[in-house]
């Protein structure tokens, strides 16, 4: 850490093929998911992923405000991805900038691709993602948190939506970039997978990749999503434990 202001490009991959935090190319950062931390919401989740901390809450399906957004045949899915002012190194002015609005849009569309929205015409499903501490990959962490929150809210959908970014560092394809790798790497490719169908519902890319590298990146990302999918399910199982209550005192 601490090389934030460094002008020179750091060595991202050492001679042993290990990354700056000691990970292999196909290794995820540690991920912890907690379902249901916010009792005021219909569903919620908190995700700590490497040094990212992201909270998500879902309200709905509920009456649409403002009313003109109402759709007569299905629920409208509204997403607000927001970064806390102190979540990044240089303080961010409060409020939604263009980047946040774009991310909100692609995340909302990813969820529209899996939620059975036609079951709730003229309603709104509101997805709120708050990035509290950012270290690359916040849209994926936010998507994972929001997806667990949607399940926690009982929203019917095709499947949970695991997400991860794959990138290119020192000419190698690497899973789950952290901040220095994102800043000094050659490419960043966030994606979200529908495990049931094997299809991608969020896909963005920035940087330079060859066709063979892209193929490799997609395979690595899908594999990473499947690992994250298991962690999402485990978080929901823990919240809704069916284990018998101990016979002891109340």
């Amino acid at each position, binding site marked *: 850490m601490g090389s*934030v*202001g460094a002008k020179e490009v750091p060595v991202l991959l050492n001679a042993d093929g290990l990354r700056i935090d000691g990970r292999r190319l196909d290794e995820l950062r540690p991920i912890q998911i907690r379902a249901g931390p*916010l*009792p*005021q*919401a219909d569903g919620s989740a908190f995700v700590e992923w490497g*040094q990212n*901390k992201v*909270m*998500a*809450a879902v*309200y709905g399906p*509920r*009456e649409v*405000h403002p009313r003109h957004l109402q759709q007569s045949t299905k629920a409208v899915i509204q997403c*607000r991805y*927001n970064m*806390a*002012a*102190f*979540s*990044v*190194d*240089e*303080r961010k002015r*409060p409020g939604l900038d263009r980047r946040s609005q774009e991310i909100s849009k692609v995340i909302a569309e990813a969820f529209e691709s899996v939620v059975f929205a036609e079951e709730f015409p003229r309603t709104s499903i*509101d997805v*709120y*993602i*708050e990035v*509290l*501490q*950012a*270290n690359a990959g916040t849209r994926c962490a936010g998507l994972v948190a929001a997806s667990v929150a949607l399940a926690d809210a009982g929203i019917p959908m095709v499947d949970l939506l695991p997400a991860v970014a794959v990138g290119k560092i020192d000419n190698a394809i690497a899973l789950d970039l952290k901040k220095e790798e994102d800043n000094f790497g050659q490419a960043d490719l966030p994606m979200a997978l529908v495990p049931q169908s094997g299809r991608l519902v969020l896909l963005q890319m920035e940087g330079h990749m060859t066709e063979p590298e892209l193929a490799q990146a997609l395979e690595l990302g899908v594999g990473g999503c499947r690992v994250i999918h298991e962690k999402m399910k485990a978080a929901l199982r823990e919240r809704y434990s069916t284990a018998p209550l101990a016979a002891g005192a109340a």
Partner: protein
Amino acid sequence: MSEEVTAEILQTHILDLAAEGRRLDGRGPDDYRPVTIDPGFVTTADGSALVNLGQTKVLAGIKLEPGKPFPDTPNAGVLTTNAELIPLSSPTFEPGPPQPGAIEVSRVVDRAIRAAETIDLTKLCVTPGEKTWVCYVDVHVLGHDGNLIDASLLAAVSALSSATVPAKRFEVADADYPLEVLHRPIESTFVRLGDTIVVDPTFDEERAAQGRLTVATDESGRIVAMQKGLVGAFSPDDVKSVVRRAFVHGDRLRAQIRGGRR
């Protein structure tokens, strides 16, 4: 517009209980909910604290950046407090520009920090008239179950108490150093429920309340800020009694901040 309407019979029940000195969650009129303080929760901030007050959850983060002093105070640093009541935290909050409620929380918290001289603004000044530290206090409400003012100030003061001035990173000095906190103001908020005045109201109690009164105290026995809110009224004797109670809660919560440093 807010989605949630509180049922009249729930409000009446809250008032009936208060008449007997009881509350919905089993507390007495002068019982504060359990408080946890987690300082240093956000490592991207120069100081931070996550505060849980019952089911109210508030995260405060401090950012310090070099900037220019205001022309009328060339020897003083700049302190800015901003509270965001984000729609994630309550079904009653809507996306959009800051609502009056958020602005009130920001300003009441800011007044207490400023009036208590929590930090010595002159020490933030690097070169008079030219360069000073700008200290941003950003309060992010994550869960709203009432009494956002107390939780927000508690988070803000805890965050300031854990803050480091990033002097090395901004090449202002050779090493970072802890932000010096001179005073620790604490706000205690009360609401009137009939003839009973209870401390630390929940969301439902605020909905039933006939007036809200916030008193900020510091450790030297000063009253440093007050705010009357919501529809309702307090007599001068009510105010004096609330102030006495606010000192007791203030001293207890201040001890928790000191013990909470990570």
